[in-house]
Structure formats: structure tokens, C-alpha cells
């Protein structure tokens, strides 16, 4: 099998091809094989080898995968995740994760002792299986241009805690995600497709939008349209100049 890996060292970025004579292995096992037998300098992260630590996410043929759960195929190209600073080979910087979780207040702010039902727990089950693998970040078009965007996993996690009955104070959380948060998302759905845990961040974000509106926050995307209309009207009637008119 031939695979190509996008390498990056202190100085340069280059593509390198490796030949592996092994069948039915995972992409992570292929990386291990290369490191142990061909080129020990190849650098990547890994941990659990079973899809739960999220450290081995990479791009295979430009799609986000967990290397440990992705079977190796012939003629593939491996790259590091997008939207993060590449430190070396397949390793990207992860220091922003904690900052984003902190900013979005993805935790229980104020605990309340309340009777929890089976359905209540099931409601947050899926969202709380996020492994912070960053795949969703790698696909997000908003994040690629705005590094302050809280982004899919942090927002999913906010929904997980706002839907948690144990939380007595959701206001702060909703407050924290209004700017560079839920309204900046384009609802493109890339994150949903990329998630190895089948978490649907796009829908989670829509849910947060709904919750926000229900709690008295206004939708700035509508506001800006109003503003635009007023602006146009203003121009139309007062100066006769409308840049958008024919």
C-alpha cells in the first residue's frame, strides 16, 4: 500500500510517500508502523487506540477521521487538521480549547438539587459523549476566518449544560454565546458530518438560538436586515442615492 503524508518540520512543508505491506490495519497502526520501521521522526498524537481520547484526529483524503478507527486504504493522503497552527507533521496546537470552553462557560454555573428523570439524562447523553477531537473545528468555515468564534464543540457543550436540569442559572451561559457564538454560525452543517461521535452541532446551535430568543435575546441577523432596510429607505427618500438600486 502506498500512502502520502504531509510532513512539516521546523523549516519546511513537504509530501512524503511510504510503502506499507500490511493488510487490514488502521491508519494509526500505519503511522505507528512507519514510525517504528521506516522513519522514527514521523510525529502524530495518539492515546487510547479506541476512539475515545480524540487525540489522533487527522485528515485522510481531506476528510476528518480518527486515525485509530479509520481502516487504511491504498493511495491515500494524510494531513493534519485544518484551522489550527501546525506544530509538527500531524500535530496541531490545542491550547485554544480550554480558552473557548472557558469563554463559553461550558460547565454547571450553579447547581440545583432537583429530581432528575431518565429522559432528562438521555436528553444530554449524546452531547456529553464529545471527545474534544477538534474534527468539527477543522471543518468550520467560520472558525477558519474568525479565531474568536466559539465554534461547534464549545457550543454543543453549552447546550449540554443548558439542557442539564442540574443547572440553576442558564442566563450567564446564554449571555456568553451571543457574540462570536451562535449567530455567527452559517448553519452549513460541516461539523455535523465530520463528528466521529455523531453529534449534531449544527442542530445544537439552532436549539441554542431558539433558547436564546425564548429568553429574550434578539436575533442579530434579523436586526441587521432591519437596519439595512432602514438604511436603504433612508437613502432612497432623503438623498436619492441608493448604492443598491439600478
Amino acid at each position, binding site marked *: 500500500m502506498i500512502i502520502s503524508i504531509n510532513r512539516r518540520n521546523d523549516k519546511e512543508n513537504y509530501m512524503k510517500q511510504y510503502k506499507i505491506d500490511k493488510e487490514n490495519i488502521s491508519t494509526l497502526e500505519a503511522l505507528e508502523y512507519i514510525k517504528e520501521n521506516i522513519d522514527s521522526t514521523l510525529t502524530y498524537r495518539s492515546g*487510547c487506540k479506541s476512539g475515545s*481520547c480524540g487525540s489522533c484526529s487527522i485528515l485522510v483524503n481531506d476528510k476528518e477521521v480518527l486515525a485509530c478507527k479509520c481502516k487504511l486504504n491504498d493511495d491515500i493522503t494524510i494531513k493534519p487538521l485544518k484551522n489550527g497552527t501546525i506544530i*509538527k507533521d500531524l500535530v496541531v496546537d490545542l491550547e485554544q480549547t480550554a480558552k473557548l470552553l472557558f469563554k463559553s*462557560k*461550558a460547565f454547571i454555573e450553579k447547581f440545583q438539587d432537583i*429530581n432528575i428523570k431518565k429522559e432528562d439524562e438521555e436528553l444530554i447523553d449524546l452531547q456529553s459523549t464529545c*471527545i474534544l477531537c477538534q474534527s468539527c473545528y477543522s471543518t468550520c468555515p467560520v472558525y477558519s476566518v474568525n479565531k474568536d468564534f466559539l465554534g461547534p464543540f464549545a457550543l454543543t457543550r453549552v447546550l449540554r449544560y443548558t439542557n442539564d436540569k442540574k443547572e440553576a442559572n442558564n442566563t450567564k451561559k446564554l449571555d456568553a454565546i451571543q457574540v462570536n457564538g451562535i449567530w455567527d454560525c452559517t448553519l452549513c452543517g460541516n461539523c455535523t458530518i465530520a463528528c466521529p461521535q455523531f453529534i449534531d452541532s449544527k442542530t445544537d446551535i439552532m436549539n441554542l438560538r431558539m433558547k436564546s430568543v425564548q429568553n429574550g435575546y434578539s436575533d442579530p441577523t434579523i436586526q441587521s436586515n432591519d437596519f439595512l432596510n432602514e438604511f436603504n429607505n433612508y437613502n432612497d427618500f432623503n438623498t436619492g442615492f441608493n448604492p443598491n438600486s439600478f
Partner: protein
Amino acid sequence: MYDVIIVGSGGAGLSAALSAKEKTNKVLVISKTYPTHSQTVQAQGGINCVLDYENDSISNHINDTYKSSKELGNINTIKKMCESAQKTIIWLDKLGVPFSRDNSGKIAQRYFGGTKAKRTCYSSDYTGLKIIHTLYDNCIKNNIEFLNEHTLIDLIINENKYLGINVFNLLSGEVIDLYSKTLIIATGGYGNIYSTHTTNSVSTTGDGLAIAFKHGIKLSNLEFIQFHPTALKGTNTLISESARAEGAFLIDDEGNRFVDELTTRDEVARAIKIKIDNGENVYLDMRHINANIIKEKMPQEQKLIKDIMNLDVHKDLIPIVPAVHYTMGGILTDVSCETSIKDIYACGEVAQNNTHGANRLGGNSLLEIITFGKIAGNNAAEISLKKETNIPNKIEFNVINLILEKKLGKSIYKIKNDLSEAMFNYAGLYRTNNDLKKLHLLIKKFEEEYKNTGIENKSKKYNKNIVDYIELGNLLILSKLVCQSALKRRESRGSHFRKDYKQINKEYQKISTIQNIKERVEYKLEEAL
């Protein structure tokens, strides 16, 4: 100068950090990975706690744990863990761990091997994952300071007094000194001395133990290595005990069941090993289990089996092997988590605090790491507040340059794999005097090879090979200590099975300790603290 430094960010380290932070702001967590990359995320099955007092009792929990320890545990330590279990679960629940609930809204419980009552709390089959992510979210909420991808390489100890640590910053390639009044070692177990036969994370390389040993800190019970009966053949991915708890069978090539699936892990694992050594295959059979139960209670298992083996639990038999899963041995601590050097604490899988003895019960590890993680954090913080210290002079530390200067010999990865195969063959589920002696010679050979090799990669920035090199050194130290401890225990007890001494021997109803005293290795049998 920190009050408390915690090395390791698994369940034990994060619990310690949260409880230390209640007392002082000067808390730092060092980790060679990221918190959510720690092995604790892999725990699927659950965490033990008696909640149903009608059908179970705390004294049952204590007795089962003691029985499983084969009378090597300390009853007081076990008591402490079991008696505070409910408090521990409530603490986790309050932090936001989404424990699965039963129809009446109570925290749901399942059966685990070695017990006759439903005593294991869980969050579907992502218990460890949900616990650690919740702990991490709380650390973030509480502004706890982290240094990620920093590897502990040494302790700074002067005349038996703890001063600080040396850590290797992977990103910059530099070694830095960090000083604190107290230290908590929470670096996890040493399963990777069997790296090609383990369910453990690649980072579980016994660093904390090896480094502690070099400084004369007492280690204990290293010979007790728990094999999990059911790992997927070929990849060693764990299929949780919850599968058997929910009714899965173990069958051989002829389709016969050959062992009580719910007896303790060591017994099940040995029964499987005998089959495999006879050239047979062993399978997990889940075909008869209700699809809804699988969906609700084992979604991760089902997914792993599909993704990794391309098999369908409803239709296919799943080939399995036993794999190294948990290491009972560790840095010896007392019930307050203190080690044999003052101001140094240990908690989690790295520690041997006399709860698990010769064998750990499923679901007791998560309980132990959280319970004693909190105790360690609390005690270390309290002590630090009473302690005056000055920052010592900077100590020159040249180990990285020494590694980089070494000429390349045998590949460190080849040595690691050879070591693992030797450990598995000669110090695995069955042990004999002859095999262990052979192993000892082999380890000496690997040590020689290790001394005579270096790494190819000379770059400073994010040179993971340096960490790999340091880890291998630690694995070698531990392999040798495990081998020596296994040689000395001439009996079969719990996970330690000697073909040449098949019975339990009362004379060995003691914990083993192993300590480096002025470059001499001292082995002893002692009463459990």
C-alpha cells in the same frame, strides 16, 4: 513557588486539583498529554457504589473488595473508600456527571464481575469519558492552571526533602524546574511494559513509579498485573465487562461455554488463556442479547466492534483475547495518600494504597482514583499552607543533550516491542521460576541495548522521540522490578499465578515492597499498612 503541583491529569489528577483548589490558588497541573487524552476516558463500564440498601450493603462492598484483594488489602483503607463512595458519587453528580438513571429517576446500577448485587453506576458505556470531561470542565471553571505536553523527568529532592520537579517541555525542547511545597504524583499505571498486549493508553508507561523508585520512594505489589478477559483479538481494544454483565457468553470453537462469565477477571482470563494456548479461539457471544439493551447500555461496544472488527454483535461471534488492563502495584501510600517521602503524595493507578491487593474488582478503580484523588489534593494543600520554603538554587540538568548526543543503535521502538513480548511470554497470566529467570536475563540485554542507543531525530521542537526514549527507560526499570517481585512471590494469589506454586501460601499474606536504598534494591514482605 506553587503550593501543590500535581503531575498527571487523569481522573485522579483532576480530582486532586479540584480539591486542592478549594484550599489554595497556587495549584498547577502538569501533564504529558492533554487532560482529555488521559487513559481515564477509556473506562466504559462504571464506578462502584452501594445505593440500594435493601439488596446490598456497604459491608458487602467492603467484603467483596477485600475478598478480591485476596486478603492483601487493608480493611481500613477499603472501608474508607466504600463508606465514602456515596459521597463521591454525589460529588460527581453535582459537578455535572450525567449518570444514567433508572425508571424511577435514581442513578442506575448494573452488575459487574465478582459481586452479586447491582452496584456499579454508569453513564451509558462512557463512564470514564463523561467523568473526566466533567472534571475538566470544572477545572476550567475554577481557573486551574495547566501545563500540557510537559513530561515529568525527575524529582528534585535534597537530603530526603522534596523541593520540586524537572519537566520536559515538548514544544520547546527545554527542561524547566518547577518548585512547590507539596507534590502529587498521579501519572497512572504501568500497563505498557506489555505494550503489544494491553488495553491501556500509549501514555501509561509507569513514569511516576520509575522516577519515584530512583529516589528511594517505596513501591509495592508490582507483581500483580490484571488481565482483562475480553479484548478484541488483533487490536487489544477492550470490550467492557458490561457485555458479560448484561448476559454475553464466552464460547470456544465448538460453541461450548467453558467458564462462569461473571467470576473474577483473573479466573476468566486464565480459562481463556488455556484455550488459546491449546490453539483454540475464544469468542464473545452477544447474539442472544436484546437489541434494545445493547443500544441503551453498550452503544460504544457495538460501535467499536463494528468499526474495528467489522462485525455485527447481533449476528457474529466476536474473537477475543485477554490483555493487560490494570496494574495493582504502585507507589506505596498510606490512607492519607502520603508516600515514603514527606510532602510527596500519590493517588490513582500509580499508587498502591492497599485497596486492590492482589486483584481489583471492576468498577473499583474509578471509585478509588476519585476518592483518593480528592484526599490527596486536600491533604497536600493543607500541609502546604503550613509549610515555609525557599526556592533552591537552579540545578543544571543536561539529560536531553545527553540523549541527543547518543549514537543510534537498536531502535527504541524495537526494544519496546521485544520487551513487551518477553514480558507477556514469561511474566503473563502464568509464571514459573524458570521463565522469570529467563525474563530477567532478557531484560538485562534490553537495558544494554537501551544504553547503547539514541534517537535519530535531533530537532528541539516537539521532538516526541525524546519522550519515547525517556518512557522506554522507565518501562525497563519497571519490567525488572515486576520480574523480581514475581520471582520472589512463591505462591499463587489473585492475578499472580505461579505454575510451580499453585496454591495460596499463608506465609505470603503480606504486601511486597521494593525500594532503592543507596543503589541497592531491597525487597521485603510487609504487613499491609
